[in-house]
């Protein structure tokens, strides 16, 4: 599945479209502690988290995640949204809990 397919799915709100729509989503990763995510997020993952700040985007970018998915109705603050636009990072959002969100993506990988 590609990032574009996730975006077009209808399940998620597109917070920031990003610039790598053709990127393949290789796996799903769940974590809210940034240092843990930093050490463990696999490259090419859809990262499901409730943490929506600047540092989330830095971690997504540095670990080479395919996209960030904010679950549980978590929001991206304004500075972070700008940063996502500048850095071309895809950020999607949903009201669903983390587990259900990740499971749905996993099923369709």
């Amino acid at each position: 599945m590609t990032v574009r397919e996730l975006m077009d799915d209808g399940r998620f709100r597109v917070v920031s479209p990003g610039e790598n729509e053709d990127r393949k989503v290789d796996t799903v990763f769940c974590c809210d502690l940034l240092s843990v995510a930093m050490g463990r997020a696999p490259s090419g993952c859809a990262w499901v988290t409730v943490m929506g700040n600047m540092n989330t985007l830095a971690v997504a970018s540095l670990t080479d995640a395919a996209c960030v998915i904010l679950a549980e109705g978590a929001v991206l603050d304004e500075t972070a949204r700008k940063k996502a636009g500048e850095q071309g990072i895809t950020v999607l959002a949903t009201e669903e809990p983390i587990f259900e969100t990740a499971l749905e993506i996993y099923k369709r990988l």
Partner: protein
Amino acid sequence: MEDAIILKYGISPDDFTRAGEASSDVKSKLKQMGVSPEAVRKVAIAMYEGEINMVIHAKGGEITVQITPDRIIMELADVGPGIPDVELAMKAGYSTAPDEIRSLGFGAGMGLPNMKKYTDEMKIDTTVGVGTTITMVVKL
């Protein structure tokens, strides 16, 4: 080393909106130079953790990155409080980060262990009350 490329970054203390910019810049430069994605990822992760530590635990400082044909050497120097017990600080989960830092998603005590895990060599020179210099090497 004549053919080394040297990059220098000043790191401001307590500025979480800018923390990570130096690491991001190094990441994109290495990518442009055609360094392998695996090595780029290692450098980016290790340097980001060190950069964040300089912002949270020290009073900012300076990062110097040397890129040579066979290795990348990162030197992170701060004039912060120093680390009283390095062995303890290296333990996964050990953190002195205050609650407001934890609410940002940091303070899991995984930074130094991540830096060790993702680099081929890591050396910590620290003196309490004087500062800390961490040198990390990623082989290419």
